[in-house]
């Protein structure tokens, strides 16, 4: 079974209000008001002087703490932004060098947008399962640093902020067990933000149904039910997105959305970063399922059930 030996996140120290960031992005007062009142964003971390490597390394170092670099066989970089103008081709090699992982099999996984972190975990874990060395580890690093205004402000509904995450993966290790992973891609929506209005409408109509199906598949594979899940841990685009995607009020009440006003949207890193917040705030109960869940533009739905114990930071009430 794939296990998550460490899950960590990193946010730069600099905090900016949504008003200040909106001004930097050239938004109108009305647009800024929408982000605060309607989309639920108060502030975020944003440090223009820090590149993606400088942001990925701290989370990765924390995830690697206590692990010999020699044990890490694979380094997987999951990122949402995939255009040629967003990422230097040397990024992963530099991350590997900074972490002492030049020996590792290093590659990136992308084109699932905010859902990509779960695929990365599954791919990393599956590589380890096939290699059958219980001491081997894989490191998944997750993050983006949008370089264009178009990528920093998504369709006037999301303000992308700085934040990264990392997870150390094992096979049958003592870490948090991954009980299931379900994913489905509706590639008829692959035009993403450049879709026609009709396609946008069709995608919005499909989202609740397909998300529910994938979530059901994940709990079924994990041997539990949606009622058993203590937290659903999603990405943090804004508050409105999940109101539309999860019409069931009771279900949505268990979606962890508290980081939206604090950190805004950190793209692919959100899911793992939000999990870390729940753990650090001691809001995870031991031995109860937690579902990592995401919808990535393009359109990929993913759900992963994990069950943290007290040894993983869950706290009995």
């Amino acid at each position, binding site marked *: 079974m794939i296990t998550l030996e460490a899950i960590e996140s990193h946010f730069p120290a600099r905090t900016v209000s949504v008003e200040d960031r909106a001004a930097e992005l050239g938004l109108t007062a009305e647009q800024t008001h929408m982000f605060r009142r309607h989309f639920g964003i108060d502030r975020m971390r944003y440090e223009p002087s820090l590149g993606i490597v400088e942001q990925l390394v701290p989370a990765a170092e924390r995830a690697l703490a206590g692990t010999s670099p020699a044990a890490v066989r694979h380094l997987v970089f999951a990122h949402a932004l995939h*255009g040629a103008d*967003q990422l230097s081709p040397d990024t992963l090699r530099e991350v590997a060098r900074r972490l002492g992982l030049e020996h590792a099999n290093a*590659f*990136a996984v992308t084109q*699932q947008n905010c859902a990509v972190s779960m695929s990365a975990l599954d791919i990393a874990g*599956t590589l380890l399962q096939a290699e059958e060395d219980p001491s081997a580890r894989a490191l998944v690093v997750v993050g983006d640093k949008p370089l264009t205004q178009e990528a920093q402000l998504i369709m006037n509904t999301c303000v992308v902020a700085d934040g990264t995450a990392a997870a150390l993966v094992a096979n049958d290790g003592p870490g948090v067990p991954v009980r299931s992973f379900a994913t489905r891609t509706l590639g*008829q929506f692959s035009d993403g933000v450049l879709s026609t209005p009709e396609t946008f409408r069709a995608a919005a109509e499909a989202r609740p149904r397909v998300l529910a199906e994938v979530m059901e598949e994940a709990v079924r594979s994990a041997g539990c039910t949606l009622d058993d899940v203590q937290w659903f841990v999603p990405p943090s685009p804004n508050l409105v997105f999940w109101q539309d995607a999860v019409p069931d009020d009771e279900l949505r009440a268990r979606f962890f959305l508290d980081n939206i006003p604090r950190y805004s949207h950190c793209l692919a890193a959100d899911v793992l970063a939000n999990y870390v917040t729940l753990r650090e705030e001691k809001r995870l109960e031991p031995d109860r399922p937690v579902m990592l869940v995401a919808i990535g533009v393009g359109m*990929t739905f993913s759900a992963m059930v994990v069950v943290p114990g007290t040894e993983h930071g869950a706290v009995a009430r």
Partner: protein
Amino acid sequence: MSLRLRSVVEHVETPAAGAAPPQHTELVERLLARVPEDPDAPAPDLMALVYAVADPQGHKTTASHLNHRTGGAAHGFALTDQGVGGPFIALRVAGAYARTGRGTAPLVAVVESGGTAGASAASGVLLRLGGPDGLDGPGGPDGPGGRGGLALADTVAVPVDRLAEAWAELVPAKGRLLLVLGPGTDPGAAPAERTDVRTAPADSSCTAVWRLLAQEAESWRGRYATVALCAVDTATGTGHLAVLRDLDDESEPPAGNTEEEEEEARHG
């Protein structure tokens, strides 16, 4: 569990001078137009779109598009940031999923828009693989998708200074080895015995050796016990190897057996 090569197709074009190179989605569509009819082939359950250089456009998720065009049932993603090693890593991932029983019909598409140093042509290769499920593919049992043919035995990464040694270990005790050499490799270091060498097109980089596989795989059946595709990522000094075995070949396993196995092979 070896993944049998069901089909492999290529597409190549030289962009007109001054014209924008084709985007990844265009290359994918041109590849799909070349995939042979294979009504018995299951829809891919694992799908990797591989590239060394990202598309200039960053909105369309071509991996999702390819997934949709091939049945929409796959765990699909794009795999990148490995240079020429990308396709080898994708096959390693596919092999891992197959070994754990969660991806027995993988599809790997490699695309290269061209117009860069070492890749003047725009090209793509699409590989469909499948487990030993006994299904016949195009051309019946003896066709390229039939029960025989080439199967992916292993993919490994080797420091470039140990490549010659790795090649030598692949030479079978009986039969011949075909080395398909791509960017960064040295044909002069190929083993002297029972080894033939094919050199991949110079106008491609990430797709190079895979293009040769698409062009000539059918002609290799029955002639080579082992086919090894190799390319070197000069930025990291890593040699990437994909080893294919001929399922029709009844030769001995490659050199490197135990002494007892060698003795038995010689004397029966």
